[in-house]
């Protein structure tokens, strides 16, 4: 049995009891607008999920609910079998549309600060995270002067530096060149192989076809399909 198969088997055994993320009838309203409507489902360990849908489908809100940034209006979210997110914050990470970085600080200063929030004081870990996304750890320009693609990669480095078990990524490939996006996709695949649950909201799902385990389609605040194939089941049906 290969190393990955062994890891997946071990993780799935424990995940049957406690999936890293589980939603049960989760709704989220902003005033009268329902961004999420009674979503239920599990997201298992060592799986990479690609969340797809039109603008306004509720993808980003779903990630923010899972990250604990927005409380659910109704329903229940559990992380690793418990509903108290404060107990498992160290195991979760989130990368948003915005960079979540200080423009005035350089890459290492940014990472060093965020590492400190997770009790990490080792510069080597920050340097490893930078190298893993293809950035030079000696880069000393302020982050505000980076290209959008570099900021996205630094933002990913920030999100992965504490080795989360659940990684929530909102449009990680926007404004990233094709080659770098491909490398980022491979890195996410490797994190999945090492046991991390990865949820990626993207409008560029083709970048993840080689590494994604499941495509989660959303529309009007609901999960409408979960498939292992990127092709839309409705389109496939219509083509027949």
């Amino acid at each position, binding site marked *: 049995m290969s190393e990955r198969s062994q890891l997946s088997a071990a993780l799935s055994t424990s995940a049957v009891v406690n999936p890293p993320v589980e939603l049960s009838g989760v709704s989220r309203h902003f005033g009268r607008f329902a961004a999420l409507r009674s979503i239920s489902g599990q997201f298992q360990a060592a799986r990479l999920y690609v969340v797809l849908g039109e603008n306004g489908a509720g993808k980003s809100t779903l990630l923010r609910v899972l*990250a*604990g*940034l*927005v*409380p659910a209006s109704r329903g229940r979210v559990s992380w690793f079998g418990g509903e108290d997110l*404060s107990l498992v*914050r*160290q*195991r*979760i*990470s*989130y990368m*948003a549309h*915005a*960079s*979540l*970085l*200080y*423009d*005035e*600080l350089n890459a290492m*200063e940014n990472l*060093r*600060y*965020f590492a*400190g*929030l*997770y*009790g*990490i*004081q*080792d510069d080597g*870990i920050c340097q*490893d*995270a930078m*190298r*893993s*996304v*293809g950035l030079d750890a000696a880069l000393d320009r*302020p982050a505000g002067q980076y290209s959008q693609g570099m900021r996205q990669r630094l933002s990913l480095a*920030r999100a*992965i530096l*504490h*080795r989360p078990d659940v990684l929530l990524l909102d449009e990680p490939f926007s404004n990233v060149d094709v080659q*770098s996006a491909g*490398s*980022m996709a*491979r*890195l996410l695949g*490797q*994190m999945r*192989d*090492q*046991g*991390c649950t990865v949820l990626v909201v993207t409008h560029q799902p083709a970048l993840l076809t080689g590494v994604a385990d499941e495509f989660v389609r959303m529309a009007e605040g609901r999960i409408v399909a979960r498939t292992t194939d990127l092709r839309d089941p409705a389109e496939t049906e219509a083509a027949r």
Partner: protein
Amino acid sequence: MSTAAQLSRVPISRTPRMLAVLRATLLKDLRLEWRSKDAINSMLFFSLLVVVVFSFSFDPTAEESRRIAGGLIWVSFLFAAVVALNQTWARELRNQVLDAYRVSPAPANALFLAKAIGNFVFVGVLEAIMTPLFMVFYNLRPLGPAWELVVVAALATWALVVNGTFFAAISIRTRSREVMLPLLLFPISIPALYAMVAATTAILAGDASPNYWLKLLGVYDVVFTIACLLLFETVLNAE
């Protein structure tokens, strides 16, 4: 782009310690301010304007100056502090950096205390620069023990920044945050403002002991620091 070998799945994060996060956040804020000088420049410019405008507006005698300078100084510092207090959280909302803190296991109160101490430093620097100018422009010479002014300044500045940091965190998500902060902060600062002005006047005029007002400021600081610490996590995570 290199990859897996550099990112082992060995869990490396630990529960962050309050003091370590406080220190890291404070140093980060001081570094950001050192590079941008957003808050200090605005505060200095504003305070300088107040000193110059008031000195041209009336020409008090030395005795009158001792009676009114306490009020002038602290009102000037209060208005100037609002500038710094608004900056404190504005830089956390740029690029939504505050979300990265909220997602992390770092304690909310470490963030609050770091921000309050940072503002204390900024306003303290302002006071250190502006107080000699006030002395010169208003021909002031304290008749009471001048060292007590340092105690008044420390207690009064903490009174301003602890509530200011808290209410700035509340007002930062509102549409008219520049107006909202003074509206929330000034009424609740009235007892502290009264005490700091009375203590400063007592020291400058040398005709009364400032002890009562210092005790009042001390109690105000303790009560509001505890209240802010108890409520800050709710404010931080409020939608």
